[in-house]
């Protein structure tokens, strides 16, 4: 097996192992319900994390995704409940806005040579601020089309469901993997992450790619916002606080290097599932206080990273001695 698949393999291995451990303690965790929930409940996070994966692969970061999700939710609620548009039209509008927003951040990052961290931090303030301005109240969405969409799901034996949004997340991951590995844009993203100056000398269209990356992240954050609004049937300006950190964590747990240039979209999916597993485990346990919950999440995160490092190092040593 190739060296570069190591982190990914390690992550998958860790996930399977820990799932097995969880099931040994709580047999109920094997139910299709839990598996279906793992997909549905993390759908919006997963979709946003696909965008984040591209951004991080290129050596950047996008702190605005949580705020963009909240903005999209509030925007949809406002135009659906007050504007009377059809949801599909509203979805298209929302995606157009968030994509343009991402593209704008990308353009600022590239043309003004400003660090992504700060540009997207300002973007985060701006997007959440816009959500507040649209409405500080949480607005329920009562459009019948939402109910229709929610009615689509595939029932698994044992009561679990693959919902529309869970399926959408898997689809987005699929498309993300294709874009990353089978398009010139994808290779350019890796190229930027490998070294922007070199990539430029090699003729990578740096401006177009950078803008494209953040536009893609904006688009997917918008899509995540739509999914979130389907998930909760509401728009709320305080929703999805800190989702960017969850997404970054998923990306990194999935074996992508924050310095860029190395990693896999598929790894992010496993990262998402690992995070979901931690959550589920804690709820199943149900004895932890608020503070122990936080401490345990932190420690498990640490344990996963350490395990990953350990596995990678071990197999490197073995290879050298082989």
């Amino acid at each position: 097996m190739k060296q570069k698949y190591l982190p990914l393999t390690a992550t998958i291995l860790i996930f399977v192992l820990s799932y097995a451990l969880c099931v040994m303690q709580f047999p109920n965790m094997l139910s299709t319900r839990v598996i279906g929930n793992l997909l549905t409940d993390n759908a919006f996070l997963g979709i946003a994390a696909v965008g984040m994966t591209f951004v991080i692969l290129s050596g950047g970061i996008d702190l605005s995704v949580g705020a963009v999700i909240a903005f999209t939710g509030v925007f949809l609620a406002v135009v659906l409940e007050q504007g009377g548009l059809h949801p599909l039209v509203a979805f298209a509008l929302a995606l157009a806005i968030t994509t343009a927003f991402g593209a704008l951040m990308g353009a600022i990052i590239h043309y003004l040579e400003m660090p992504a961290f700060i540009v997207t931090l300002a973007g985060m303030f701006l997007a959440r601020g816009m959500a507040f301005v649209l409405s500080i109240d949480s607005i329920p969405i009562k459009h019948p089309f939402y109910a229709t969409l929610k009615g689509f799901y595939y029932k698994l034996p044992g009561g679990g469901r693959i919902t529309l949004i869970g399926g959408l997340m898997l689809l987005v991951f699929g498309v993300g993997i294709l874009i990353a590995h089978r398009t010139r844009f994808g290779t350019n993203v890796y190229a930027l992450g490998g070294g922007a100056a070199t990539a430029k000398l090699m003729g990578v269209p740096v401006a177009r790619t950078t803008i494209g990356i953040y536009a893609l992240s904006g688009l997917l954050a918008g899509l995540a916002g739509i999914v979130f609004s389907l998930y909760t049937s509401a728009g709320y300006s305080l929703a999805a606080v800190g989702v960017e950190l969850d997404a970054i964590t998923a990306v990194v747990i999935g074996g992508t290097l924050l310095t860029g240039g190395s990693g896999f979209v598929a790894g992010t999916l496993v990262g998402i599932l690992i995070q979901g597993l931690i959550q589920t485990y804690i709820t199943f346990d149900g004895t932890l206080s608020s503070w122990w919950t936080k401490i345990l999440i932190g420690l498990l995160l640490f344990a996963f990273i350490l395990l990953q490092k350990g596995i990678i190092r071990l197999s490197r040593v073995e290879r050298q001695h082989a």
Partner: protein
Amino acid sequence: MHSTSDNILSAVRIEKGFPGTKALDKVDFQLRRGEVHALLGENGAGKSTLIKCLTGAYRRDGGSILLDGTEIDPRDTFDAQRLGIGTVYQEVNLLPNLTVAENLFLGRQPRRFGMIDAREMNRMARELLAEYELDLDVTRDLAGYSVAIQQVVAIARAVDLSGKVLILDEPTASLDAHEVAMLFRIVRRLKARGLGIIFITHFLEQVYEISDRTTVLRNGQLVGTRETTDLDRRDLITMMIGRELADEIHTNHPSAGDGQLRYRFRNYGRRGHIDPFDLDVRAGEVVGIAGLLGSGRTETAEVLFGANRADSGTAEIDGRAVDLSSPRAAIRQKFGFCPEDRKTAGIVGDLSVRENIVLALQARRGWTRPISRTEQNRLADHYIRALDIRTADREKPIKLLSGGNQQKAILARWLATEPEFLILDEPTRGIDVGAHAEIVRLIESLREKGLSLIVISSEIEELVAYSTRVVVLRDRAHVAELDGERITAHNIVEAIAAANEGGAS
């Protein structure tokens, strides 16, 4: 004379300034169809800058560029590639995290139904590399291959991109004779096809071997363009450095050191890097290390310096066992090490020349005993003068210096620590003739002062010139040692070859 229509590329009065430097001052340059044109000059003369202006990597401040008689204005390298100008920039400029095939076809991958056809791309990549007698796993990341292979890949890519013009900026710096010969075969073939080829190098033999005409730059100004055959070596050097070079490298190698034995390495090595070896070094001795690319020369240096901790064997200095498990430990024993890869392991790019020079000394003294600013200035000025480092001033960030001058600054860093055991990995790579001679002289004077030196070099002539002993490596193992009268270029080549025939290790 040739009419202008013969010129495939011409640059007129190109100007380029950096804060504090006029890198190009109204430089004219003509490249004909079907010629190999050597572009020469000292380190920092402006060769790379000229190339970058021609290919749009830098925006020029003035002047115009004509390709096939029509004015062009490449905004970026992508533009230049589309116009049929393929370039290998100085230092390997490929992406280590992409596969070999991706590097070769970045931006022009074959597609089917809008998706990259990876199988086809890999096939094309293998086919392309076959011309260079390279049989690589093209689906592996480039980082897994040696600098030399990366260089060949970069060349292959540029050649494949060059419909009209091929530009090679010091492509041979990290290649050995075999690979250089191969490169030249390809260059001749392209030349026959009518391409114009610009070739930058510091190896004068190569200039005479391959080039038709030669253009010399000095301090950002055009000195002149000549037919190479009309130009004798001495004149060429004078054109480059503006004065006569006192004496070029002399060939009578020094007598074996009779200083006392100071450094004793026994069974020293590291699994997976370099096989255990024995090595003795005397005071006042230069041990040259020879070998093919990838033979483990750099690994030997890294193990000696503790950059890679040895996992077997012992090290003694003056009969006393010492710990060399980390660079700090080695530095404590007055070791110094100029690494081969100066960009990633040598320079600290954003720091000034001054800070780069005092860095190792300061690190050894510890942070609580800062070197005073006056002292830093004195040290920096001293070495800038002593090694003739071309820089606008000592506060210039080192990354803005030309490659050769960066190399000298790293040397200065170690000299400032007054080492007793100095390891130089390819110290003359990318260094101009003048500086080359200076470094060779420096090595000799250091030896005369009683230092012990280990010098790795791919230039066998050079090794012969200053080594008191030569160790030959192959397949990550020390396989032969030459000393005294036996150190000749012929013998070294023989030793490498003999070892080569020696079969599997």
